[in-house]
């Protein structure tokens, strides 16, 4: 059980001691790595005669760009960098277990923070695109009676985001530990490919997919452009 706990690494001695959890420290490490990588990759970009590094980088970001703009529409373009950051961060957090760290997303406080930010962003997107009155009115859509449910969604949406991510990462972690206990040889790396890598990226994808979906809903009008091809619901139920 000790492995499942998120230890408090140290305590900042103000306001009666603020505990800094392991997840936050690992997040700092991830931030450091990502920032160094970003500075290294973001240098010396050229318009023509690109290096292979830049081509890879551009195709990666082009892919993310298309994905998020396809979900949120042209109006959602301003939120794409944030979504990119989140998908990179969650993706990294989910697979960092491979390197011997505890995944920050295994800590419910981190996923809660992420989900909270997502719902705040959704509301900001609503206010920015519909105006404050339009945002308030959007709670009474499609008819006035559903307003309480719409208000409830303010809690339900982030809660589901938070719990899905947390539960999946924790579940994958527990299963991996069990497999390691039962079959310590050969099996763990094979299952690790699925539970650590594949599931890690899938969860990052699902989190960002749903957040983008909520944003496009909040922006309104362009709901028809949302592709129905890949439904995250199936992935959830599957787990």
């Amino acid at each position, binding site marked *: *059980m000790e492995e*499942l*706990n*998120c230890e408090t690494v140290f305590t900042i001695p103000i306001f009666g001691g*603020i*505990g*800094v*959890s392991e*997840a*936050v420290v690992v*997040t*700092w490490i*991830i*931030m450091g790595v*990502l*920032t160094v*990588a*970003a*500075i290294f*990759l*973001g240098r010396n*970009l*050229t*318009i*023509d005669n690109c290096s292979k590094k*830049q081509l890879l*980088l*551009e195709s990666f*970001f*082009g892919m993310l*760009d298309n994905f998020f703009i396809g979900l949120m529409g042209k109006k959602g373009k301003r939120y794409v*960098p*944030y979504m*990119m*950051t*989140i998908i*990179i*961060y969650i993706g990294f957090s989910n697979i960092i277990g491979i390197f011997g760290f505890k995944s*920050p997303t295994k*800590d*419910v*406080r*981190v996923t*809660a*923070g*992420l989900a*909270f*930010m997502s719902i705040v962003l959704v509301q900001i997107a609503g206010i920015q695109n519909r105006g404050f009155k339009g945002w308030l009115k959007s709670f009474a859509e499609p008819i006035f009676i559903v307003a309480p449910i719409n208000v409830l969604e303010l809690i339900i949406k982030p809660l589901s985001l938070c719990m899905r991510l947390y539960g999946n990462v924790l579940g994958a972690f527990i299963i991996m530990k069990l497999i390691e206990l039962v079959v310590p040889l050969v099996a763990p790396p094979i299952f690790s490919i699925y539970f650590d890598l594949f599931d890690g990226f899938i969860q990052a994808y699902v989190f960002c997919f749903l957040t983008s979906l909520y944003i496009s809903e909040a922006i309104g009008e362009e709901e028809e452009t949302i592709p129905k091809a890949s439904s995250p619901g199936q992935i959830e139920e599957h787990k």
Partner: protein
Amino acid sequence: MFTLELSNIIFTVVNVLILYFLMRKFLIGPVRSIMEQRQQMIEGSFAEAQRKNDEANELKSQYEAKIVSAEDEAQQIVADAREKANDEYNRRVNSAINYSNRIRTEARERISAEEEQAKKDVLSSVASLAMAAAVKVAGGKNDALTDESIYDDFIREVSAQDGTTSY
């Protein structure tokens, strides 16, 4: 295991926000701006190519119009030249005809003058011969025989004097 203390949520939020700004500054921003610049460059060169194409088409139509007008002009010039040549030809021919006519009339006049002169000469020589004959008649005998011989002499003399003259 499942604790929801606020401080770590706030830490997460702050961390993610910081990460967002760092990513945007160092990675997403530069990559995006480069991609946009390239997009603009491509669009610019497309527009430039389109513009040049239009320009070339316009020039082409201008040249075609010019060629047509040049052909017209050439035909005009040839027609003018032909007309001028015809005029010149006619003029020359006319002047030649005039000249030859003039020469002919002059020649004719001269011939008639010479004829006149020849007639005058013949007459004058006839007169002198008549005179000589008269002298001979007066000098010789006045009988029929001599008259005849004198007449024959006269004829012979005249014939010797002018072979071409006959009666």
